């Protein structure tokens, strides 16, 4: 096996490996942030060793906190949630499920993986360049992200590398999207119609379609942002801006314009992260209930509807940007409309379980956990989709709690479900069931212990992106809540070590698997 393999199975495993590495870094950054929030004055030797400029004497500066937040968000959204469910599992299993010998363009597939890897390395390089990693969050709003070094540490070369990394990621994702769509359209085996494909294949198909339309727009935004930073253009930087007592020699740019370009990508990105998980969960619920998926066609159409509507709702991220109230109403109605296909999926999952002979294997537990998280996170999405409420909740921890549940943790649960379900095909062995169940219960309780209290912090008006709550009188009373959340986060991280052990141990020592151990009906289990 060569690392520059064009084999879809090898590339799928490479994507999964990259995501696993990325999630460990992303998780470590989140723990450092949580630690700082409850111990803002603590001096930690590790911080000083890792970031001598950002943590002089071991005490984390606000700028370092913001750079960790930026990198955490970027790593998790792009290199974990976008990469593993679609490119990882999709590459490995899509050709097997539709009877293709490989992806349509194997060399392009290999190039796509290595461009993603290069993008990841470029992003990581931001940690070690002068000024460190950027501060502007994963959304990189200008003017902060567009001004360059004068805007603060990390806004020089660090932000350049961030934009370059995202541009590379866009190119890689476009290559992957073209490959997935072409594979499904052209390489289905004879007799495999669109409505003969498993819902996982449908999910990868719809996700690839979304990627094709969304990443090109982010690429355009990234190119214009890079030119504002490096070529003296004024696409996003307004005229008359004064930074550090210096007037910026730019004219008439619009920061809101970048927000439109970003969120035209950013909202569909939520579905890029979650739709492959929906496909996996549909399959797992069906297999471990011993029943066919309830309402197969409705499930496929619902995914298409979610994908289509997802492009019409980007404005709900910008309710407070000064847009017309009429636009807000339109975006709000369309946002709430996404609840319809989402509810179709949820009710169909429940109907699939109804009357089934349910086997509570670890994969099934994760699938049920996904449904729970999808409902919890989805309901708060309806709250945020209303302009009147969003005015209050915008940029509070309510938003943080919402998107972590619906986009982050739910998608991660789908990844866990997929790994438990397909591990016999990936490695010829089972993941240990007992460890898997302990890991599930610990993780399930842990994520709710972390993110439910953060909703209440948001309701209490706790803004996000503040590195030191004790500086603000109105936030002092919320410190006990944050201490509890941070301890829950430590526990949640600790239980992940159990999964890591299980993942690597089971590859060599796990129980050997039969050819189709779960009794599944999809093609990948019958492939030699």
């Amino acid at each position: 096996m060569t690392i520059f393999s064009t084999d879809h199975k090898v590339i799928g495993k490479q994507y999964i490996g990259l995501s696993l590495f990325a999630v460990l870094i992303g998780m470590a950054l989140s723990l450092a942030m949580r630690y700082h929030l409850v111990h803002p004055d603590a001096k930690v030797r590790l911080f000083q060793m890792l970031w001598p400029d950002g943590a002089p004497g071991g005490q984390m500066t606000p700028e370092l906190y913001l750079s960790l937040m930026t990198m955490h968000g970027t790593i998790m959204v792009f290199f974990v949630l976008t990469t593993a469910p679609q490119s990882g599992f999709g590459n490995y299993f899509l050709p097997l499920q539709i009877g293709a010998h490989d992806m349509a363009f194997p060399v392009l597939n290999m190039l796509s993986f290595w461009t993603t890897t290069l993008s990841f390395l470029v992003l990581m390089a931001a940690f070690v360049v002068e000024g460190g990693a950027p501060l502007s969050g994963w959304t990189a709003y200008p003017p902060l992200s567009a001004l360059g070094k004068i805007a603060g540490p990390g806004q020089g070369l660090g932000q350049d590398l961030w934009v370059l990394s995202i541009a590379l990621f866009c190119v890689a994702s476009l290559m992957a999207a073209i490959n997935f769509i072409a594979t499904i359209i052209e390489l289905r085996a004879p007799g495999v119609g669109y409505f003969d494909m498993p819902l996982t294949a449908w999910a990868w198909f719809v996700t690839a379609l979304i990627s094709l339309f969304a990443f090109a727009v982010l690429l355009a935004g990234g190119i214009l942002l890079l030119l504002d930073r490096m070529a003296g253009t004024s696409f996003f930087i307004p005229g008359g801006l004064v930074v550090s007592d210096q007037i910026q020699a730019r004219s008439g740019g619009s920061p809101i314009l970048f927000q439109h370009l970003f969120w035209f990508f950013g909202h569909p990105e939520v579905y890029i992260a979650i739709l492959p998980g929906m496909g996996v969960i549909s399959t797992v619920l069906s297999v471990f209930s011993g029943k066919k998926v309830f309402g197969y066609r409705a499930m496929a159409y619902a995914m298409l509807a979610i994908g289509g509507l997802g492009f019409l709702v980007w404005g709900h991220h910008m309710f407070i940007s000064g847009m017309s109230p009429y636009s807000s109403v339109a975006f709000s109605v369309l946002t709430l409309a996404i609840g319809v296909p989402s509810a179709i999926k949820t009710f169909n999952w429940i109907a699939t379980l109804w009357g089934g002979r349910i086997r509570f294997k670890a994969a099934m537990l994760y699938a049920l956990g996904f449904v729970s998280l999808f409902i919890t996170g989805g309901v708060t999405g309806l709250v945020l989709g209303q302009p009147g409420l969003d005015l209050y909740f915008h940029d509070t921890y309510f938003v943080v709690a919402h998107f972590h549940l619906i986009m982050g943790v739910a998608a991660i649960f789908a990844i866990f479900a997929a790994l438990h379900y397909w591990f016999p095909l990936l490695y010829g062995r089972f993941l240990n069931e007992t460890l898997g169940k302990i890991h599930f219960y610990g993780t399930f309780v842990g994520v709710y212990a972390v993110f439910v209290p953060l909703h209440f912090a948001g309701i209490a008006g706790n803004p996000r992106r503040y590195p030191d709550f004790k500086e603000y009188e109105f936030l002092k009373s919320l410190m006990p809540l944050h201490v509890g959340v941070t301890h829950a986060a430590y526990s949640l991280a600790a239980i992940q070590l159990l999964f890591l052990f299980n993942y690597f141990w089971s590859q060599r020592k796990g129980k050997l698997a039969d050819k189709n151990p779960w009794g599944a009906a999809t093609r990948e289990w019958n492939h030699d």
Partner: protein
Amino acid sequence: MTNVARTGQTLLIVASSMLFAAFTSAMVVRRATGTDWIAPSVPVWLWAAALLAIAASCLVAKKFYRSAALCGFALVASQIACAASLRMGDVAQSFAAVLVTAHAAHALFGACALWWKGERASLFWHFAGALWLYVLWLIGVWA
């Protein structure tokens, strides 16, 4: 051309169209919201370069792929010369530079593909030619 190649090219065309749609929408919004928009003047010879794109498409239709690729390379050279002459400090000219350079990248890819892959790259080349006419209209007439 195989179905797989044709589908792949069609999808590439969709992605490229989205890229240029995003640039266009940014240009429309930026012109409407700023007070610093001065219409860029497109060099006359850039209009003449449109003939290169059309000539290349005609040559592709006649299956003279390498001759078409040479026209493509000439088009790219004229586009690079044009982009280099534009002032990035002027917002309308900077949009023109972005669009011309982005198209040059597409034209270069298309010309190289014509040179090495011949007929298999024809669909993309026709798209690149039509796209150049659109870009010229956008920066030369609309802007």
